[in-house]
């Protein structure tokens, strides 16, 4: 009962946040300062349009996840208080106006989510939580170092003073601070290669928490990158923008490639989060480069594309994780290979998941398409930059984004097709049950939002333009076309509402015509099977088989470790008694980056350990030597 109350409180807080954020986005800015609560500058909050956007997104997602959790019964009873703390901390992070407030809220958010990752308390969850704790604190260390660097050189911990002082800073200090802050935020955003915690931690948490971690928390890392890239430190040099653009392209591609071969539904969604953060960063990087070249209108377009994708991803990833939660609850496993046929057992969840999959695959006329389209239009206009090397970077980023979109469509064909269609692949899947009424309503509402954001870009884009314009020195309003058609200068135009209408007519007219003329006759029979007696689920294509063409094409990336074990009869090897074939894919980031780094760290630590002899006399010598050294150096 207490848990339900806490979740209801979180839902109310989310609703308040959504309203407050929306108001802030539309221009109701305010500040709040309480000196007594925290040391070194006091608690200081400022609402600006950018913070408003992220709070609105967080609020809307929180309403959905909290309602789902409230209806979760025993499974979600534990951790309700931690969840509320997590939600509150995420609400404070975008508002924080000085380093102290920010770091406290940031760390509370990390700790609360860490505790929620530990929910299942099995070995996998412990490992996930351990990796998460290490990565998030490495990120925090970078953030603290970067903020201290800025604080010592500007003499203030307030972000507003940083904005004012940034143009006059030494380039080295500015670059150093940007690098440290960038690393800290990128590790939270799951940018490759700092992503290792994400595919472990997000699936380990309960689904309503996974939805918030993927939908909102990683976005706060993105918010940090936006602040560093276009806000706190002034116009960024070419190198930063290029770095963000390339990191985005790499994250998008590598993220979706990992998602494509994944057979764990929730981990697939987690990898796809990395992909989507990559898409956002492509927009952000392009905005930084355009701004450096003083092409403010293009910079605004690219930043609007990035922010639109932030909003969209929050909606469809929350939807997909919540729907995955229903599926996992019903089937009792994350494994795609044990699902199948769920569209008949849970039609509403299936319909919502399908809409989410269409949206995340960037298909018209849903919301993912609009933000990807905007990103493409920004990238394709790179000819305005008079630098062949940068033009090439933009062209390759556009190609990477196109490949990502294609692979994304393939990945979500697999996710939906294997999980929901054909015959159930396990006993549990055959008896899975539909979600409760509340959860169904939440899922359908989120799907409805995906549709609305898809057909209403002429309302959303100008609003985002008001957020993005001032950040990159462009006009806040104007230049987006009329009520029905969104235009990007004279370069391109799009009317998703007309496309949606045309698609509906194209569906309805032939459908009605065939039904009315009596042509649409059908009867039901078994799937054609080359003469075999009956069809079973073992004849169906599996998730692994579906991804096989991709494993072959990209085998330089996956480096599968193929193994074939055959147990043959002692008298003739033609009689095979048991055969096992495994071909797991590997992560090149683990093997080429983290393992060598951890190995060398261990070696170093073992060497340093020799100093630790355990004899007090030796330690006294150390102290004496250190004292002498300090005196000499002074």
């Amino acid at each position, binding site marked *: 009962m207490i848990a339900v109350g806490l979740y209801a409180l979180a839902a109310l807080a989310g609703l308040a946040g959504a309203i407050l954020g929306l108001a802030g986005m539309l221009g109701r800015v305010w500040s709040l300062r309480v000196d007594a609560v925290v040391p070194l500058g006091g608690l200081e909050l400022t609402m600006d349009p950018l913070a408003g956007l992220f709070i609105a997104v967080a609020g809307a997602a929180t309403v959905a996840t909290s309602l789902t959790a409230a209806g979760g019964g025993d499974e979600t009873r534990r951790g309700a208080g931690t969840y509320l703390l997590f939600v509150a901390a995420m609400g404070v992070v975008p508002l924080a106006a000085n380093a102290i407030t920010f770091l406290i809220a940031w760390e509370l958010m990390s700790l609360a989510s860490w505790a929620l990752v530990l929910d299942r308390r099995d070995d996998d969850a412990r490992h996930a939580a351990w990796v998460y704790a290490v990565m998030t604190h490495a990120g925090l260390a970078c953030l603290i170092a970067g903020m201290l660097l800025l604080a010592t050189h500007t003499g203030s911990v307030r972000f507003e003073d940083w904005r004012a002082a940034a143009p006059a800073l030494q380039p080295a200090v500015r670059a150093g601070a940007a690098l440290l802050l960038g690393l800290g935020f990128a590790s939270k955003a799951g940018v490759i290669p700092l992503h290792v915690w994400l595919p472990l931690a997000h699936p380990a948490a309960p689904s309503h928490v996974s939805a918030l971690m993927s939908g909102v928390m990683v976005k706060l890392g993105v918010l940090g990158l936006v602040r560093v890239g276009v806000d706190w430190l002034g116009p960024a040099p070419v190198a930063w923008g290029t770095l963000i653009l390339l990191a985005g392209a790499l994250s998008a591609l590598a993220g979706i490639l990992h998602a494509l071969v994944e057979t764990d539904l929730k981990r697939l969604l987690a990898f796809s989060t990395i992909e989507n953060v990559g898409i956002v960063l492509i927009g952000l990087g392009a905005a930084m480069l355009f701004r450096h070249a003083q092409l403010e209108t293009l910079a605004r377009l690219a930043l609007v594309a990035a922010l639109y994708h932030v909003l969209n991803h929050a909606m469809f990833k929350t939807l997909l994780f919540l729907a995955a939660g229903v599926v996992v609850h019903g089937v009792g496993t994350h494994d795609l290979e044990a699902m199948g046929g769920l569209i008949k057992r849970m039609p509403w969840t299936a319909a919502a998941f399908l809409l989410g999959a269409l949206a995340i695959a960037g298909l018209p006329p849903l919301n993912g398409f609009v933000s990807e389209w905007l990103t493409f239009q920004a990238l394709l206009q790179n000819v305005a930059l008079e630098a062949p090397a940068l033009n*090439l970077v933009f062209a390759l980023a556009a190609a990477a984004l196109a490949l990502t979109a294609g692979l994304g469509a393939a990945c979500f064909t697999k996710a939906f097709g294997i999980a929901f269609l054909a015959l159930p692949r396990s006993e549990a899947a055959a008896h899975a049950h539909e979600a409760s009424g509340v959860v169904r309503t939440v899922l359908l509402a989120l799907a409805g939002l995906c549709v609305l954001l898809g057909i209403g870009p002429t309302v959303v884009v100008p609003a985002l333009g008001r957020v993005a314009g001032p950040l990159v020195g462009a006009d806040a309003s104007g230049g987006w076309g009329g009520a029905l058609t969104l235009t990007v200068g004279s370069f391109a135009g799009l009317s998703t509402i007309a496309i949606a209408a045309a698609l509906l007519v194209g569906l309805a007219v032939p459908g009605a015509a065939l039904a009315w003329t009596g042509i649409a006759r059908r009867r039901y029979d078994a799937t054609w099977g080359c003469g075999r007696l009956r069809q079973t689920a073992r004849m169906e294509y599996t998730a692994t088989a*579906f991804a096989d063409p991709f494993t072959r094409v990209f085998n330089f990336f996956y480096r599968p470790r193929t193994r074939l074990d055959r147990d043959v009869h002692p008298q003739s090897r033609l009689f095979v008694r048991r055969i096992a074939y495994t071909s797991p894919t590997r992560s090149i980031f683990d093997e080429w980056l983290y393992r060598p780094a951890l190995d060398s760290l261990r070696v170093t630590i073992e060497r340093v350990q020799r100093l630790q002899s355990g004899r007090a006399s030796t330690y006294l010598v150390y102290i004496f030597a250190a004292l002498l050294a300090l005196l000499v150096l002074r």
Partner: protein
Amino acid sequence: MIDAFVAVLQVLLVAAGAPLLVGALRRMKALLVGRRGPRVLQPYADLAKLLRKEAVVSTTSSWIFRLTPYVLLATMLVAALIVPLVLARPVLDFAGLVLLMYLFVLGTFFLALAGLDTGSSFGGMGASREVAVAALAEPTVMIAILALALRAGTTNLGGIVERFAQEPLLAANPGHLLAFSALFIVMLAETGRLPVDNPATHLELTMIHEAMVLEYSGHYLALVEWAAAMKLFLFMALLGNLFLPWGMPLTAAPGPLALGLVVLALKLAVLTVGLAVVETGVAKLRLFRVPELLAGSFALALLSVLSVFLLR
């Protein structure tokens, strides 16, 4: 008024002309290898026969399977409004190449789901291969769009075609030719032609598209085949109008419209002969060599873009 007329004309033209194009292509291929081949109007007869038959639907499948043929048809009908056919300015003027490509992906997405929905191994195999080929073709498409947009200053199809129709010499440069070759290869991959896929065979090891739609019958199959023919028609018309921009009327009036129809028919005839020659001349590639072909087309498109950047 004239706009509405053009819209209806375009949709009817694509819907009615697509089977003719397929029939002509088959006839041409037959003639090239010394056979007589079926008559040009045969695809119409096939469609009519399929529409008269009762469809058999797998008991394993769901509403996705039954909805997909209609989705496929709807995407093609909308695409018919986006592609400039007889007039330089298409009906839905705002829409660009990016949207067109994504509409095709929408159709592929549903078709792949339908392939999985019946639970047969063929369906899954075809679906997996089809989405792989479609995904790998995407980067080429985007870079080719970039190459066109760089020369025309817009990604709106109407704008591009109008620009080239006004200044046909723009289309006669090597960079443009490279982009054409790249998009031609994409067309082969996207519409399931040789050497990527063989539309005339049901050999299980090599099937891509045919494996995916194996379970369809009756009016569902008619819709799927019709939509596939329309996709080919739209791709060929697009290539013709983008890369042979001559003779496109710029205003909607009865005279120019009639002229536009004749010009379109001529361009399609040229491209049909070209496609028939290509398909007769090459053998089908092994499935896992297809990525190399697509990588080649990507290189062509990238060269086309680079030629703009470096030669400005």
